[in-house]
C-alpha cells in the first residue's frame, strides 16, 4: 500500500514537471514574445525595452530555470496586464471556478448515478434504451449552445434565473447545470455498465439467496462494487469541468479562473496563461491521485495488501 502511494506520487511529480516544461514551451511558440507583448504599433525600441523589462533577452534556458524555480516556490510571476502577482489573481478567481466545478460535479452525479443504476436494473428495457438515448443526445450537445438556450428559456422567457454574473447563489444554477450536464454521459455509461456487471455477479445471487431487500441488493451490494471506476472517472471529469469552465464562464460572464485565462490569452498576458495551464494541470493530477487513493481505500483487496 505504501509502495503504491509512493509510486503514484512519484508519477504525479514527473507528470507535473513535464507539464511545467510544456506550459513554458507553449508561450514560446509564437517566436518572439516581446513582439507579441508590444503589439502591432510598437517600434523596435519599444520592443527592446520590453525585452529587457521582462527578462526576455536572457537565454531561454535561464528563463526556463527561473520559471521552474519560482513556480516551485509558489511564485508564478506577475501579470503584464494587471501588474499583480499571478498567484494572487488566480486565488481571487478560484472560489468562483471551484464552486462551479463542485456544483457541476454534484449535478453530474445527481443525474448520472440514479439514471445509470435505473438503466442497469432494467437492462434491455424501454427505459434503459431511453436513458441511454439521453447519454447519446447529451454527448452531442455543444455546451456553450446549451448554456445560451437555457439563458433564453430560464433567464429571459421565464425570468427565474439571472442572465449573467453570479452575485447571488442563483447565478450559479444554470452554469453549474450546463457544466455538470457535459459530464453526465460518460458517468452514466460507466455507472450503468458497472452496475450491469455487478448485478450479474455471483455475490448478488448470494445476496438474493439471503433474502435481502431489493434496496440492499442494489444499493449496498452492487453499487459498492460499481463505484470504483465511477470514482476514478468522476475525478477525471471534475478536472475536465474545471478546465472546461473557460467556455461556461464565457457564456455566463462569470469571473473565474476560466475567464481570467481567456482574457489573458486574448491579451497576450503570458505569465497568467502559463500559470493557469500549470495550475489546472496540477489540480487534475492531484484529483487523479486522490481518486486512486480513494479507490485503494474502497477496494479491500488493495487496502489490505
Amino acid at each position, binding site marked *: 500500500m505504501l509502495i503504491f502511494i509512493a509510486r503514484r506520487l512519484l508519477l504525479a511529480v514527473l507528470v507535473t514537471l513535464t507539464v511545467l516544461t510544456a506550459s513554458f514551451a507553449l508561450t514560446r511558440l509564437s517566436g518572439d514574445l516581446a513582439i507579441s507583448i508590444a503589439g502591432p504599433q510598437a517600434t523596435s525600441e519599444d520592443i527592446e525595452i520590453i525585452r529587457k523589462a521582462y527578462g526576455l533577452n536572457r537565454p531561454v534556458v535561464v528563463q526556463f530555470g527561473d520559471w521552474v524555480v519560482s513556480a516551485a516556490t509558489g511564485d508564478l510571476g506577475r501579470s503584464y496586464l494587471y501588474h499583480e502577482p499571478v498567484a494572487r489573481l488566480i486565488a481571487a478567481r478560484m472560489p468562483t471556478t471551484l464552486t462551479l466545478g463542485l456544483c457541476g460535479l454534484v449535478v453530474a452525479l445527481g443525474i448520472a448515478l440514479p439514471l445509470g443504476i435505473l438503466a442497469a436494473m432494467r437492462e434491455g428495457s424501454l427505459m434503459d434504451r431511453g436513458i441511454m438515448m439521453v447519454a447519446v443526445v447529451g454527448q452531442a450537445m455543444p455546451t456553450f449552445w446549451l448554456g445560451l438556450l437555457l439563458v433564453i428559456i430560464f433567464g429571459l422567457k421565464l425570468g427565474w434565473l439571472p442572465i449573467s454574473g453570479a452575485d447571488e447563489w442563483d447565478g450559479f444554477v444554470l452554469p453549474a447545470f450546463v457544466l455538470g450536464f457535459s459530464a453526465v454521459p460518460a458517468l452514466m455509461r460507466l455507472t450503468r455498465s458497472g452496475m450491469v456487471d455487478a448485478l450479474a455477479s455471483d*455475490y448478488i445471487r*448470494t445476496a*438474493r*439467496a*439471503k433474502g*435481502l431487500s431489493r434496496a440492499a441488493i442494489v444499493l449496498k451490494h452492487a453499487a459498492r462494487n460499481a463505484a470504483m471506476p465511477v470514482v476514478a472517472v468522476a475525478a477525471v471529469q471534475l478536472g475536465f469541468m474545471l478546465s472546461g469552465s473557460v467556455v461556461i464562464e464565457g457564456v455566463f460572464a462569470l469571473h473565474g479562473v476560466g475567464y481570467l485565462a481567456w482574457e489573458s490569452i486574448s491579451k497576450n498576458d503570458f505569465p497568467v496563461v502559463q500559470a493557469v495551464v500549470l495550475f489546472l494541470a496540477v489540480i487534475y493530477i492531484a484529483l487523479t491521485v486522490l481518486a486512486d487513493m480513494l479507490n485503494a481505500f474502497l477496494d*479491500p483487496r488493495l487496502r489490505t495488501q
Partner: protein
Amino acid sequence: MSALLEVEGLRVRFNSRAEAVRGVSIAVNKGETHCLVGESGCGKSVSSLAIMGLLAKGGQRTADRLAFGGQDLRGLSERAMSRLRGDRMAMIFQEPMTSLNPAYTIGSQMAEVLTRHRGGSRRAALDRAASLLGRVGITAPGMRLAQYPHQLSGGLRQRVMIAMALMCDPELLIADEPTTALDVTVQAQILRLLMELQRELGLAILLITHDLGIVARMADRVSVMYAGEVVESATAGALFAAPSHPYTRGLLACVPIPGTIARGAALGSIPGTVPRIALGFQGCGFRDRCALADASCAGAVPVQRRAAGHEYACRLEPGWGERALGERALGEQA
C-alpha cells in the same frame, strides 16, 4: 405427513425455443438429505434456482405444485419470497470464490442475514456469526469476522457460506455442488461438516452433485436427472441395489459392486452428451444415447414403479435385465 419441500411438474424455460427443466418432481422430507444427481448441463442448478425463486433474468418458471412447509410458493411475490429465503430456506453455491461480496467483511455479510430476518442488534448478529464460524470449524472466528473474502481460501469461504446459510436456523438447505470447486481433502471435510450439521440441527438438505461417491456417502433419497427431467427416484439403498433406468445403470456401470463406490467416481461413462431439448419434444430424452431404445421410445414414456418410493421413467418393465446384471456381478466376484 407431507414433505417439507414438494415440487411437482417444475418447468423452466429461458427463451421460447428450449426448455432447461421439463417437469421435475422432487420431495424433500424434514431432516433428510436428498441428492439430485446428473451430468453437467442437465438442469440441476436451474431446478434449484427455480425452487428458490432465484432464476436469472429471462428465466420463466411454471409448476403444478411448488410448496414449502405446506405453503404454496408459486403465487408468492418477490417480497414475500425474499422473507423466506435466507430465513427458512437457504442456499449455497458451487463457486465459493465469487459468491461472497469482495467489498464487505465476512462479519458484515453474515450479520445482515440475521438483522434482515430477525431484527435485533448488529452486535448480537455478529456474536451469532462468530459462534457459527466456530461451529463450521473456523478457528479464531472473531478475527475472521473482520476479514474480507479475498483473505480466505476457497475451503474457508465455503465454510463461511455454510455458516452464513445457517444464520437463521433454516429448515431447508439447498447446496448446489458445494464441493466441486474444492480440493479433494477439503471436499471431504465440507461433506462431513454438512452431515454433522444435519444430524445436529435436523436440517433438510437438497444436495446437488454430479459425483456418485458423494451420493453414496450422503444421500437418504436420490433423484437422477437427465436432460431436464428426473428419470429415476429412489432411496439411496434401493437405487444402488437395483438401478432401474438405463441411464442410471449407465452411470453405475463403471462401478463394480453397487453401494461400494469409490470416492470421486465420475459420471459420464456413457458416450455422447446431454442434448438441448427443444420445446414440444416428445418421448424419452435419453433415446439418442440409450442402447435399448426402440421405436416406442419416441412415444409417451410410462412411469414404472419398481417398489414403493422407487420410480423411473422408461418403457422397460421393472426387473428388466436384472439377471444379466446379477450374473455379471457374480462373474466378477469369481
